[in-house]
């Protein structure tokens, strides 16, 4: 009798656990945005998305991964909107038919951070390519994302311009973490290495150690973000209407203002520049 009671109790607990809907799943109107770690880690999305949700009643679910993975996920139809920062890859995404149209949204810039004692002597430079050349010459440790992300792609472009073959230095002074921006910063700070990071993530990063911004202000460090609606012709599950509503809001006056208003420690991290 008591045993039956115990079994029943277990069954009820199991049923409640499995069947009762997950609280926050209640919101039925939502879109999935495939985006990058920089927009999430900086806190930008947490700051601006509630404004959109309040106005439209559409919940925005953000999956924050590297740009490479975000694009791949979007190609698989696992998202309605793509918000990333690797213009050539984004244009290819649209050209291949996966996306409807690409729009500029905002930009920030990359910076090269490094240890305060600056073994390569690049501090104060505003020439990114020259700074990378110096780092390579002095064989100072450099921590790279190495994850096919937007930041990684931008970094590789600069190395190519500097004429440095990072592949041959890989594992030596050039260290690919294969991880997100935050993890790479943690690793790089720990190793006393130079790191190229987006300014937003760096400013809001909480584990800076004795690292500081050494190189900034080069136009080549410009970091443009784009937004694309995933093509509903390729994936009928894409919520084109809601996704487009989000893009329209983001590119419109309200969204652009929200981006400009987002500040960390009094610093503006992203600069809206929609057409």
């Amino acid at each position, binding site marked *: 009798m*008591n*045993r039956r*009671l*115990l079994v029943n109790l277990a069954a009820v607990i*199991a049923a409640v*656990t*499995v069947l009762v809907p*997950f*609280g*926050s*799943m209640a919101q039925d109107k939502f879109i*999935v945005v495939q985006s990058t*770690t920089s927009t*999430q*880690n900086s806190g930008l999305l*947490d700051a601006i998305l509630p404004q959109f949700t309040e106005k439209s009643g559409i919940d925005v*679910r*953000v*999956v*924050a991964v590297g740009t490479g993975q975000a694009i791949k*996920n979007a*190609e*698989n*139809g*696992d998202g309605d909107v793509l918000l990333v920062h690797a213009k050539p890859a984004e244009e290819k995404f649209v050209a291949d038919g996966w996306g409807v149209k690409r729009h500029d949204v905002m930009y920030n810039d990359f910076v090269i951070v490094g240890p305060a004692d600056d073994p390569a002597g690049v501090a104060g430079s505003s020439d990114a390519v020259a700074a990378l050349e110096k780092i390579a010459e002095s064989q100072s440790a450099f921590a790279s994302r190495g994850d096919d992300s937007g930041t990684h792609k931008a970094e590789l472009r600069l190395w190519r311009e500097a004429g440095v073959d990072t592949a041959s230095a890989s594992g030596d002074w050039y260290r690919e973490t294969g*991880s*997100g*921006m*935050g*993890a790479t*910063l*943690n690793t790089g700070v720990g190793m006393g290495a130079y790191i190229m990071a987006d300014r937003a993530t760096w400013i*809001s*990063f*909480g*584990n*800076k150690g004795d690292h500081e911004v050494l190189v900034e202000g080069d136009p080549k460090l410009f970091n443009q973000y784009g937004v694309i609606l995933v093509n509903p012709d390729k*994936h009928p*599950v894409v919520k084109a209407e809601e996704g487009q509503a989000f893009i329209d809001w983001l590119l419109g006056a309200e969204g652009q203002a929200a981006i400009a208003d987002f500040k960390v420690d009094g610093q503006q991290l992203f600069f809206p520049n929609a057409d």
Partner: protein
Amino acid sequence: MQDFADSLLLSLNLIVSGNPELWSIVLLSLRVSLTAVALAAVIGMPLGAALAVGRFPGRPAAIVLVNALMGLPPVVVGLVVYLFLSNSGPLGVLQLLYTPTAMIIAQVVLVTPIIAALTRQVVEDLDAEYAEQLRSIGVSRLASVPTLLWDGRISLLTALLAGFGRAIAEVGAVIIVGGNINHVTRVMTTTIALETSKGNLALALALGTILVVIAIAVNAAVGLIGPASQRIAHA
């Protein structure tokens, strides 16, 4: 060292202040992992028992396989489940990707081999003791399975706890299939990963402390229920 002191203070503060954000994350973690363990038990226990008492060709290979699957890397499981649930995958129509259900599925895949393998060992040991007696009473091999499971219940509870430990602690699978979406699929481990990537090491460590406290609480609760259920069973 500063981080440890900070994080301890922070975790205490988080627990005491009853931060609703934190509690919804804790609740989701428990919910996903407990559900996954419950489902994995429903699948894994009969499977383990079948491996223990069944005699069929390929049984030794099946046992080796199940034992080996205990070491499945969560990231691989996450990837495979993602490929199935993706809109480009065979189960895309179910629209389960980036939901707690997807996380449960991934954890069930991770935990089932653990429960099955440990169940097999428990049941096989018990069967060595019981087989002749049960046969003498006229209980068939198949009918002996519930008896063996019930009489092995204390050891099986440990198997469930091992499964729960694996589920609540893993991050690799749930972050891929859940997407770490705020208020939807963000659990303890993915929050810890996120805060670490933000460089908020003290906060990450504080959340880790809370995770450990939860794990201890669940184990202690089972430790109390275990003997109690035994008393009830004997009443």
